[in-house]
């Protein structure tokens, strides 16, 4: 393997190198072939899982820093700048604080639900990382139902919110839990409809295929450029996704001014930290899905020659979307419950239903046009 191709595609090359070394090592030891397959599968799986489990919290830590810095600037403040240069060590200090704080469990809570809720909140989000493509060929699992899997994992967040709300035996938590559930159920529908548009355009539910279909126009054939359906779908997706993960302006479940902290009122220490982790990782996942299906994920100019660029493109687009959500947070006030429900059911759902029908008709005409062209040629 030459050095240049290693630099151009570092992570996939490193993976292949470890994989091949391990296989040849086991072969020289005389292990039977079916055991080699299992051992290699387990070891490589363990490596990939470990990398994801390290990358996810580190990402979350620096997204919190980014949020605090960006929102501070929008509000004419400076933001954290005491721990390390530009406050770069602030997330680590926060982490240590979370881990060392006393975990207070109020007497009246429902033990099982209260204990399990933060865990149930984090697991689906981390599982979502398995099917995200961080660069060319840099997905842990090539699931041919990737997008459906991501939607399913997203829908599981409601259970955790319910468990926290009910388990706390606290009226604020309960109201927060109910609000969250109503909101997540309502906004899941426009979100899935919006994801359906790129699926229709690509003709596949596989995240990998959807990204590959956007390779036209020198790596710029992104689905958001399919005017008019692309921008409409993206806009609806962004709003619905922001509501789905309970971010401002849709953060009614944890509205401080009305509900103390909503469903996580009774949580402290690392359990609260886990809810925090889930919230920020959700923001990353939602932005990563948006970047992948509307902005081409790792697609971009020269990505075929230098695959390492794909990682830069992917993270650039994802962080741009995160920045838009922070911008929402910095500038839009919270909605009322009735406004929220009306907006979801009376605006977003009909708009998306219309867009889906329009896209289907457009695609049908497009195929018919191609067919008739073929008929003329043959």
């Amino acid at each position: 393997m030459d050095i240049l191709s290693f630099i151009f595609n570092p992570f996939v090359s490193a993976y292949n190198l470890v994989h091949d070394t391990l296989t040849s090592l086991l072969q020289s030891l005389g292990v039977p072939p079916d055991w080699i397959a299992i051992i290699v599968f387990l070891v490589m799986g363990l490596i990939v899982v470990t990398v994801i489990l390290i990358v996810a919290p580190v990402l979350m830590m620096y997204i919190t820093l980014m949020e605090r810095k960006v929102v501070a600037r929008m509000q004419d403040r400076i933001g954290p700048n005491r721990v390390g240069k530009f406050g770069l060590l602030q997330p680590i200090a926060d982490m240590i604080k979370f881990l060392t704080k006393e975990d207070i469990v109020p007497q009246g809570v429902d033990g099982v639900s209260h204990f399990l809720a933060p865990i149930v909140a984090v697991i689906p989000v981390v599982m979502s990382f398995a099917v995200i493509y961080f660069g060319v060929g840099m997905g842990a699992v090539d699931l041919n139902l990737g997008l459906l899997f991501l939607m399913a994992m997203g829908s599981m967040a409601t259970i955790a919110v319910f468990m926290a709300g009910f388990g706390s035996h606290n009226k604020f938590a309960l109201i927060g839990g109910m609000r969250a559930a109503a909101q997540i159920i309502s906004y899941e529908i426009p979100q899935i409809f919006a994801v359906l548009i790129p699926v229709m355009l690509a003709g596949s539910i596989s995240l990998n295929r959807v990204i590959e279909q956007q390779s036209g126009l020198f790596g710029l054939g992104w689905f958001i450029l399919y005017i008019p359906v692309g921008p409409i779908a993206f806009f609806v997706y962004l709003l619905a996704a922001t509501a789905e993960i309970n971010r401002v302006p849709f953060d009614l479940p944890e509205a401080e001014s009305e509900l103390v902290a909503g469903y996580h009122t009774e949580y402290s220490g690392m359990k609260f930290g886990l809810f925090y982790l889930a919230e920020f990782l959700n923001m990353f996942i939602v932005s990563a899905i948006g970047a992948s299906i509307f902005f081409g994920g790792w697609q971009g100019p020269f990505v075929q020659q230098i695959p390492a660029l794909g990682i830069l493109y992917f993270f650039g687009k994802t962080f741009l979307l995160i920045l838009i959500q922070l911008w929402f947070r910095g500038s839009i006030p919270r909605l009322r419950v009735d406004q929220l429900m009306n907006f979801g059911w009376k605006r977003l759902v009909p708009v998306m239903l219309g867009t889906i029908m329009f896209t289907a008709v457009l695609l049908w005409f497009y195929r018919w046009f191609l067919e008739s062209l073929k008929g003329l040629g043959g």
Partner: protein
Amino acid sequence: MDATTVIAQAVFIIVATLTLIAAFLTVLVRNVFHAALALVGTFFGVAAIYLMLEAEFLAIVQVLVYIGAIAVLILFAVMLTRGLMQRDTISFNRQWAWAALVISTLFLGLFILILQVPWLQTPGTAIYTDLTPWLGTQLLTTYLLPFEIVSALLLAALVGAFIIARE
């Protein structure tokens, strides 16, 4: 028996045991909310078994529909209707003997039926192609009528629920 089969068997036994435990908890636990959570666990176990049978689409739809929608609705209903601070409910009532009789008869019937089916004894070939487009096409061609009837039924239920809620 080669190594892969042994591991697959072991994983199946673990998953099936966990699913059964969750299913038993669903009926035996005295707290309705906990019973609903155990039901979520059961659904998840069934999804895992679908996954082991390489029915990925079914597994993911199981999570999306049964956990993401139906279980959430059940939890919602529990939270709205029950007095929340009153914790326990009685899981047995006077008719439990009759219920047990009917259920065990049904179980036995199904069990005998399953034993009588001539299952394919040769190891089936795994289907690695993406079945989702095929499923979609079949739903809108061969099985169009049942599909449309189900949609009409769901619409009727939705309108009915709406009218009841308004009164």
